């Protein structure tokens, strides 16, 4: 059983890396061309002062692209997984507070965002999706050795020690 996990673990890691990285990359890519919309999506959470929200709306898509791209190629997997997981964690808090306060917004995760009609919110799905991604990030932090990653070699030794 344990041996089997040792063999499969880098493949799980690959799936985790491509999923988390892919989601981040696509999310960033879809938003980077429409900064007005992205700023609006951040403002709609009503968590931050307007000027801070507007700034975050500008810088968040490129940050997602960087983390996503580096995760997909497997460069600094552990660091990027930690950053990606942290981002998702913050999103969960933001969505949960919007839900708890009864705001009617779209998470704006993949573009869009802002106010929606009451009853058109999808808070539960959005939070569950992000929780799943946090788990993938946690897995990658624990087992950063993955198939076809750029930093495969330098991690192999430590990763296998961890597994054993």
């Amino acid at each position, binding site marked *: 059983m344990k041996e089997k996990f040792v063999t499969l673990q880098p493949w799980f890691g690959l799936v985790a890396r491509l999923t988390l990285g892919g989601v981040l990359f696509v999310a960033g890519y879809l938003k980077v061309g429409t900064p007005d919309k992205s700023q609006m999506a951040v*403002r709609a959470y009503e968590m931050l002062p307007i000027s801070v929200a507007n700034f975050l709306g500008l810088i968040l898509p490129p940050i997602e692209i960087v983390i996503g791209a580096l995760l997909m190629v497997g460069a600094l997997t552990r660091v990027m997984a930690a950053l990606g997981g942290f981002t998702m964690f913050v999103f969960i808090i933001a969505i949960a507070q919007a839900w708890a306060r009864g705001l009617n917004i779209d998470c704006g995760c993949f573009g869009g965002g802002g106010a929606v009609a009451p009853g058109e919110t999808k808070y539960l799905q959005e939070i569950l999706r992000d929780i799943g991604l946090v788990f993938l990030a946690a897995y990658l932090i624990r087992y950063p050795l993955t198939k076809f990653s750029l930093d495969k070699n330098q991690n192999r030794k430590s990763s296998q020690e961890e597994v054993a």
Partner: protein
Amino acid sequence: MAQAKNPKDGKDNFTRNLVIAVVIGVVLIMLVPTILSKQTDSSAAVPSSVSVEDGYGMVFNKELQDVPFIEIYEDFQCPACARFEAIVGEYVDDLINTKKAKVAYHPLSFLGPESQLAANAAGCAADEGKFLQFHKLLYANQPAENSGAWNSSYFTTLSLGLGISSKEYDKCVSNNEYKGWVLNVANEGAKRNINSTPTVFINGKEINRDTDYNSLGDFMLAVSKA
């Protein structure tokens, strides 16, 4: 020790350099141009009847004092805005023409490039004294979002129906002459926390989102209470 570390350093360097390259690349290609393009340019040309102190809005009856001040934030590509225009458009035109309200239109462009082009064209039409008519016509001919339908030749053809056929107008549309103004409108909207379109204020207070956007009666009531 140095020897034992050397091969590992090689790998680290590659990854490190790649990370640095990706970060710098994204910052230079995406972040810097975006931030630069979002700077308000107070020297940008504005169409006639734009009021800089009213958030670069297109203001009608600016001189009136004791009337309700209606501010409408919209995006020409937004279907909800087309619906809103269909419901209250004629009434608002009437308020403007009979001088019963001061009205400011803020054409936002958050839905993308064709919103920007449409807002620019609306600014050009304002110079011809046809903003309100063009505004109505745009909503009546709203295509699917960023489908490529709204381009400069579309706008110049569309406005022929309003009797606009001047060379200045065509030039204004095709050169995107009010690009700076459209950007300034968007920035002012962002500063004012406009998170959906349409958003309407009467005397600085947003109208009721549950009722006033969907019914002419409720909207008229909101205006008369102001």
